[in-house]
């Protein structure tokens, strides 16, 4: 057993990767769901045990094939990525619990096994991006997850053909982003001659004025900005989230953009030095203003959406603004707030999209008038949407409050209280659009043709796991804030304490 434990970092990625082709070979819907679920649960177990072993702030280094870094590829687990590994595999497991019934309605039977295969590959890619300590490896895993994501988004074509065009747009923008990222990696390699993150960190020390290093950072910021839907580069996102099958939207909204943001953070703090003058300027003059514009403009756009899925997609872009704002303070507190926000927003958005998916399970459309009056017909599901909505706004007692509170605190400690005011003001906009949905749910008469709809327990259980965790992490912050604090401190001081 001791031996297996030592190989957990590679098994984290390997299990879903190897299960994916098995899914294709099996070729049956139920069986491949079981395999996918097994893969996801084992990832979750591994992720939790990894988080447990690095919870004291230490980190694990795994040498692939026994080749020590910097020659070989290294996998590094520290509290920052272990925390996100738990989020990604946890969300994936919960989403899968509910995926079966939803997928039966949204995707043709013959595509089910391929759907689960792509889902596993997407999970593999996301976990790989998080765990790897090699900059080129990040690109490979990023593309594994992105390519399978494009396929998953296109699966929405059975309900709405616009999913195809959305997937195509996503493909073009995602590939441009990834290629920019590779150019950046190429420039780092030119400047330092190594691909290992921590080796680069040491060698890049006296290269602050090197134009190659600056260009490489610029390419990486733009590339990742495209992938994480940083404000002016978000155009793929509303379409992809609106037309993708609800299962896919739920999974992606909680994981994909978060992982890209993690890459940006990791590169800023563990590959480059965040105290480089040009990096400070990038965040001060580019990322921070864009984040603030995103917070307001995108929340404002969300208010006028008729389609709730699209509304939530715009709200995601606004929330990414909060996360980027936390990073752009370039302080340990800001980073902590961002990590907590990554986790809490992941859960919150997953709750919202999942409950919306169940509310519109049979109609298949997610316009405001489609959920009219469902508050009385489907009280449990509407209640979980309500919880998610409150958490998104940041009402005390929910997970969303904790992340907003930490962010406000971080801005005050950074000496820019005006930002705290802006955060609160933009949260008011979130109240407006969430209220519009709540109003339709609870204060309008239902359409008469809607018969009362039975929803099985298989759907209710995962939904309520998410809703309760939205509330739970609003009270018990020892895991979220504690881990984020250690993670942020490690990144900030670049402490790599190997076991």
């Amino acid at each position: 057993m001791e031996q297996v434990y030592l190989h957990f970092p590679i098994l984290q990625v390997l299990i879903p990767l190897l299960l994916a082709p098995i899914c294709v070979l099996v070729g049956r819907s139920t069986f491949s769901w079981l395999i996918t679920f097994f893969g996801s649960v084992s990832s979750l177990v591994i992720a939790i045990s990894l988080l447990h072993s690095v919870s004291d702030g230490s980190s694990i280094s795994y040498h692939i094939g026994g080749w020590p870094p910097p020659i070989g590829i290294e996998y590094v687990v520290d509290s920052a990525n272990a925390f996100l590994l738990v989020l990604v595999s946890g969300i994936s497991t919960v989403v899968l619990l509910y995926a079966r019934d939803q997928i039966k309605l949204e995707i043709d039977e013959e595509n089910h096994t391929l759907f689960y295969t792509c889902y596993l590959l997407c999970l593999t890619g996301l976990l790989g991006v998080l765990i790897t300590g090699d900059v080129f490896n990040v690109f490979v895993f990023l593309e594994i997850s992105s390519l399978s994501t494009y396929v998953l988004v296109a699966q929405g074509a059975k309900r709405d053909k616009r999913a195809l065009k959305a997937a195509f747009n996503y493909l073009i923008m995602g590939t441009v982003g990834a290629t920019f990222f590779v150019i950046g990696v190429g420039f780092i390699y030119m400047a330092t001659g190594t691909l290992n993150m921590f080796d680069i960190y040491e060698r890049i020390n006296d290269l602050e004025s090197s134009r190659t290093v600056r260009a490489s950072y610029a390419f990486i910021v733009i590339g990742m900005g495209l992938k994480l839907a940083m404000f002016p580069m978000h155009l793929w996102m509303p379409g992809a989230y609106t037309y993708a099958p609800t299962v896919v939207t739920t999974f992606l909204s909680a994981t994909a953009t978060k992982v890209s943001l993690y890459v940006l953070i990791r590169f800023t703090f563990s590959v480059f030095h965040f105290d480089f003058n040009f990096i400070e300027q990038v965040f001060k003059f580019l990322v921070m203003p864009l984040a603030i514009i995103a917070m307001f403009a995108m929340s404002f756009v969300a208010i006028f959406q008729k389609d709730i899925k699209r509304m939530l997609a715009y709200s995601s872009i606004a929330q990414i603004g909060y996360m980027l704002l936390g990073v752009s303070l370039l302080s340990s507190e800001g980073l902590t707030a961002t990590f907590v926000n990554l986790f809490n927003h992941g859960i919150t958005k997953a709750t919202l999209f999942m409950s919306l998916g169940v509310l519109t399970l049979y109609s298949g459309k997610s316009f405001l008038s489609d959920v009219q009056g469902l508050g009385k017909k489907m009280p449990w599901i509407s209640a979980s949407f309500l919880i998610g909505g409150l958490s998104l706004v940041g009402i005390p007692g929910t997970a969303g409050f904790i992340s907003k509170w930490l962010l406000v605190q971080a801005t005050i400690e950074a000496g820019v209280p005006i930002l705290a005011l802006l955060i609160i003001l933009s949260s008011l906009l979130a109240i407006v659009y969430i209220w519009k949905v709540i109003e339709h749910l609870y204060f309008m008469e239902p359409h008469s043709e809607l018969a009362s709809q039975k929803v099985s327990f298989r759907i209710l259980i995962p939904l309520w796991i998410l809703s309760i965790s939205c509330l739970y992490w609003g009270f018990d912050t020892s895991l979220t804030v504690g881990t984020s604090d250690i993670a942020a401190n490690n990144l900030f001081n670049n402490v790599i304490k190997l076991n």
Partner: protein
Amino acid sequence: MIFEHNFIMGHLNYWLFIMLMMTGLFIVISRGNLIKKIVGLNIFQTSVFMFYISIGKVAGGTAPIFPMDMNINPSILYSNPLPHVLILTAIVVGIATTALGLALIVRIREAYGTIEDEEISLIEADEQKLETQSQLA
């Protein structure tokens, strides 16, 4: 200094890389035909492959192949093979992206009957109008 012959010829690979990259990116942005977009994307990616391969070259270096008897003469200068290996992976990713893009175009053509961006937008706008009408009704 920038117009010196040595500077221009010494950075030839970068000039070519920048030219190809801009060509590709321009096609992706400016063309409305979806297949042309994919072609532009390919040119864009190829420019990056060229960039990587050219930075592996060491001036005066030979092909990085050790002799059969592994009797290595330390005075021989070898080119750097690592960027080439990296780019093999990137080429595979590029092919997968192209294949997926083309497959999506086939599906788009089946669903919309066209592969021109503008026409697709018109069809989508019509659909949106119908949707809002049914919402009002």
